[in-house]
């Protein structure tokens, strides 16, 4: 019986990796996978950037609905929705999702098996999310102002600003007026951030292969700071060599 359990423990990851001929993903790539493919604590276990894009779309939809509202109360409600999706939704609002994505890319960059490409890309990614985070704070402030507004005219002017910010959070914005969105990280929306992440992955050598969900959901950190796959106690690539 004991031998059977041991065999099963070893067989699961090996089998999921496609047999002994296949190497498991690097720890760095598993962290990247959390940002891109799947994470255990998001709705439907989507990746953090996927969630961020969904939230940015939802926020923009609410912002557009706000502009279509014809009453002060309706306008306030819609702008509150934008704030909710951008800053407050559990488990992750838009800003939380991009921050979480950034954290996992940082974990990737700090992994011993991270490539120089990932390390350099992490710094760029961290800069790229600044615009979304700043706009998130602005949306929070404007939502507060809208909630306190006493006239529809005042609330509408603020809602238009919220709409611009929500739109920029998804599509980015041409802040410097050079005709290009994304020439500066401050102009980035979720789409540009995702574009940078895709480009980072595209530069990986050896190539990044979509990480199997088993690895994505079984990576744990030991008190020592070392990352291992939970059920196998394997230490990433080394354990399979």
């Amino acid at each position, binding site marked *: 019986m004991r031998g059977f359990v041991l065999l099963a423990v070893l067989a699961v990851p090996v089998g999921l990796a496609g047999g002994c001929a296949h190497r498991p993903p690097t720890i760095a790539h598993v962290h990247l996978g959390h940002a891109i493919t799947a994470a255990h604590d998001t709705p439907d276990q989507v990746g953090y950037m996927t969630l961020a894009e969904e939230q940015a779309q939802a926020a923009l939809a609410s912002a557009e609905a706000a502009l279509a509202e014809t009453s002060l109360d309706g306008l306030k409600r819609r702008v509150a929705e934008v704030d909710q999706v951008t800053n407050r939704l559990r488990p992750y609002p838009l800003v939380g999702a991009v921050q979480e994505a950034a954290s996992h890319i940082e974990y990737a960059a700090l992994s011993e098996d991270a490539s120089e490409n990932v390390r350099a890309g992490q710094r760029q990614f*961290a800069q790229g999310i*600044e615009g979304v*985070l*700043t706009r998130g704070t*602005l949306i929070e*402030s404007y939502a*507060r*102002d809208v909630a306190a507004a006493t006239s529809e005219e005042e609330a509408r*002017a603020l809602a238009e600003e919220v709409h611009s910010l929500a739109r920029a959070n998804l599509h980015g914005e041409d802040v410097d007026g050079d005709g290009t969105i994304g020439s500066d990280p401050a102009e980035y929306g979720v789409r540009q951030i995702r574009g940078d992440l895709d480009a980072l992955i595209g530069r990986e050598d050896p190539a990044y292969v979509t990480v199997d969900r088993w690895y994505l959901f079984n990576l744990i950190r030991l008190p020592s700071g070392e990352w291992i796959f939970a059920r196998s106690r394997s230490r990433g690539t080394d354990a399979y060599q």
Partner: protein
Amino acid sequence: MNRRSAIAAACLGLIASAGAVAAEPGPVCAPGYAAAECGSTERCEAVLEQDPYDVPARIALCDALVEQGSLLDAMVVLRQGLDGCAGRSYACSVLQIALSNVEELAEKDAPDLRADRRRDQAFKRQYCLGPSASDESIQACNEALLSFGEDGALYQALGAKYQRRGQPAQALQNLRRAVALLPDSDEARRLLDEAEAARLELADACLASQDLDACNAATLAGEPDELRLQRRRAELLQHQGRRDAALQALLTAQSLAPDDSDLARGLLPLVDDALETRPDDPELAAARAAALAAVGEVDPAILAYRRTLALNPADEEASRRLLALREQRRERLERLCFATQDIDVCRQSILPGEPDEQRILAHVAAVEAAEQRRAEAEQALTEAAEAAEPSSPPEAGAEPALAAAGSTARPLRFRNAPAADGSTH
């Protein structure tokens, strides 16, 4: 470094602020504290293993780690020390100060914290430039101006916010700065014109009605109508029974027109009331003195300025005005007392403690003597002697006049004057 740590550092003779220390190499953790000379991290760690309560060794280890750039490790070492320092207040204070210094240094070096600051500045700038006119957005503008310095766009945005809030005076202040910084901006000029027109409209409403809000919103320091608006505000405030606020408005008005006697008459009762509860307030004392001077009450004004200077000897304006009033008084005395034989006027002019007191009494004595009123003359001379100061010799003529009246004049004795033996009385 927080205030508490800074105070503690000062008490312990340690240097606070890692930033200052970082600029010049040297101990960072507790500058001024005699750290151990264990030399390397390993040796310091060995010492601490033997005695975890060895604070000099812990500070030396902290410095060694900081020198290596291991700020987080240095903080851990200090926190471990703090965990074990209960009841040893001096050791705790040294470690707490050291931790504060290292944390401050770490904050300056930490990219995350720098990013937070950058994001915060970006937020404040954008929130300021946005359409909100909330208190928070105005605060964001003011903080952004502190971060970004003189920025015409921020001043323009701030001015526009005040304008939308119906505060044209504040709008004007900021829009004038915006126009100065953005001379080609039509928008800044347009907003400025709007704010000027709005302020003038409110000023008219203030002067023509009982609208205190209009007065408050229109009043702006340095504008030609400031004096009129402040006086109007004072009237309306007094009408509402808000005497303190009215007093403040009148004090501002007085600073604009210190010689305005009408203003002074309105101000005096309010100042006197306020002095009953704040008798040692030098600003009130000076205001009272200036008001008395403005209504021509020279002698009370002199006394009031003397009181002002007793409360605030550094008040140069009060000194200057006191001198001017004394000159006025001297001219009046020359005309009404010294050039006449009217001793009643002279006696009524005496202000105890004034430099001219002795001269007046000497003149009175001379007049009494000349009119053969020996006892009165002697009495005046005695008073003059009591009043005299060494620096103000008695008026010539009193003693000869007494002699002429058949009396032997006594030599004048001065308060605090040196005696023959060199002592003083």
